[in-house]
């Protein structure tokens, strides 16, 4: 809790979508996250920054319980989504992940057609009542991911045939097709060229209107560009969390300052 003392108190508690308290994470004997507490607001872009290996991606994966798939991984502490503990025995990770979408570092379209990629989520969750319904869901998701115009004529070609930037936007479309409430993005632009990055960043800003977006990034500029809140992680600690503008201009913690000025990381 020591690191949290400087966290701004001006967060509107009622607006917190996700609330984490005292999260610790171990990979085998490696203590990867140390007592992390944070509140993530709805309809806001929150970015996690920090040097590589600081635990920011691990923490992101705690939020939709993707760490469950790793045998040696152990999570303690409390993570609440809309006031409900996501690690409770009654919570089905399958349902949780339908509520919390995720986009990965490297675009990972399934080796299926563009249409089937986007339709996959709605299909497994049984969200479409008819073929027309499904077509509408797919179109809506692709439009919101700002890729519809580029792919509408080749929906049945393999998604792996698209360019890197298009693939990543396809993955975003795939994630939002299930209408999640939170969207987690793990360095979504690290494998993309600058133009594609700009497109995706623009998209993230769009998505903020409907979702709570959490983005892990290794680029401080990106965090500054897209996010309203920023959290700085270092060696498994959440060092500082606050409004992006404030954190980048007047950091409270010397470690944050060192990182921002390039002395660590």
């Amino acid at each position, binding site marked *: 809790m020591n690191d949290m003392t400087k966290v701004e108190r001006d967060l509107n508690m009622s607006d917190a979508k996700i609330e984490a308290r005292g999260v610790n994470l171990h990979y085998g004997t490696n203590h990867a996250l140390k007592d992390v507490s944070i509140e993530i607001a709805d309809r806001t872009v929150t970015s996690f920054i920090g040097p590589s290996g600081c635990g920011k991606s691990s923490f992101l994966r705690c939020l939709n319980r993707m760490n469950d798939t790793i045998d040696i991984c152990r999570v303690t502490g409390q993570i609440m989504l809309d006031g409900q503990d996501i690690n409770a025995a009654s919570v*089905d990770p*399958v*349902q949780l992940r339908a*509520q919390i979408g995720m986009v990965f570092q490297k675009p990972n379209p399934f080796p299926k057609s563009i249409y089937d990629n986007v339709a996959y989520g709605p299909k497994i*969750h049984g*969200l479409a009542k008819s073929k027309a319904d499904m077509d509408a869901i797919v179109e809506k998701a692709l439009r919101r991911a700002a890729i519809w115009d580029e792919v509408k004529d080749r929906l049945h070609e393999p998604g792996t045939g698209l360019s890197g930037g298009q693939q990543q936007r396809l993955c975003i479309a795939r994630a939002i097709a299930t209408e*999640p409430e939170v969207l987690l993005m793990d360095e979504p632009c690290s494998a993309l060229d600058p133009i594609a990055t700009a497109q995706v960043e623009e998209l993230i800003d769009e998505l903020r209107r*409907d979702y709570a977006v959490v983005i892990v990034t290794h680029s401080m500029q990106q965090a500054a560009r897209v996010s309203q809140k920023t959290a700085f992680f270092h060696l498994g600690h959440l060092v500082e969390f606050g409004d992006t503008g404030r954190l980048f201009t007047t950091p409270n913690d010397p470690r944050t300052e060192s990182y921002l000025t390039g002395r660590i990381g």
Partner: protein
Amino acid sequence: MTDMTNRSAGKSNAEHISAGLARRHRKESILKGFGIAAISFAFLILGILLMTLVSTGYKAFTQTHLTIDVYVDPDVITRDALPRGAFDDLLENTLVEEFPDVDSSQDRRALLRIFSNGAQFTLRDRVVENPDLIGQTVSLNVPVADNFDQLNKDLISRDTPEEFRRLSDQEIAWFDALDEAGMISNPINFGLLTNADSRFPELAGLKGALVGSFWALLTCFLISFPVGIGAAIYLEEFAPKNKISDIIEVNINNLAAVPSVVFGLLALAVFIGWFGMPRSAPFVGGLTLALMTMPTIIIATRAALKSVPPSIREAAMGLGASRQQVVFQHVVPLAMPGILTGTIIGLAQALGETAPLLLIGMNAFITSAPSGPFDSATALPTQIFIWADSPERGFVSRTSAAILVLLAFLAFMNGIAIYLRQKFQRKW
């Protein structure tokens, strides 16, 4: 698209999703159940297989023996014609003394059939070796004939009506009388390993097959090991990347998948037909097995060489070692555990291989162990084939026992391979 519509869509979705959850998890459990069922099926069959082998085979690890004192009658056996003496008459007389009421010559012959056919030869060999035994009483401990062995092991049921039984009531009565007299014993059957093949199950053993397999495997090893390693080293370390190397590579991969019986045809046509090598010889068998084992060794050796990190090569190269010095003094020694593991596994496969050996005649009926790799012989798997094909009931348990012996050898070899792998496995 307003905020409100999206949010409400999200809420109704959540309900929708949770409604389908139970069904989806049930589907997953079914898939999981099928997986467990598949594995259980495989394990079950393996279990039945091993159980059957053990339950039929263990009886062949003991052999019913008859211990009896034989008076070597100088009237029947004379010194001049020792090897051709009527030792069967001697045995017959001895048994008739036990059962004085047997008098018809037919019954007397039937009585003699309690002995294994080999009993008279055992007796003969002892007397020939030491002619002074003539006129003395010799204590003889010999196998009983197969049917009586089976009776003693409860494989022939006394409850079966006589006409369906391979032993008459009279024969069973004789046997029981001998048993009561304490003359029947059931010691461990060393003959299974020390005797050569025989038409009589109670005398048949695996010595010829073991020796034959030994020579064949030795030949196989001496050829496939150096040639396989040489080829692998060349392909992995020296071969230029060109069309010829590609052809050799594809060729080796395909060779590894050629049916074994085709290698038998090759051996029959080339080694025996054209080169005039002897049929049924373990040497030819080993040669054939070597051709089959070579691709396995090449593939394993290449994998082992590949796993040696380039840094080792670069380090040695940087000290001015020639390419061959690098390979033979650094890379190959480091890859040796992997190479040996692959070789042993290849040899274990070769030991169990049957079809090519059948084609080159290693299923001959040979009653003595080969004295060298060019003598006619059988091998363990072909011996199993011969016994499995024999009509005598006693060969069923012998076959199972032979298979258990073969499996023991395979387990031993694979055990060594696993030990090598674990002991010398290096994480780079």
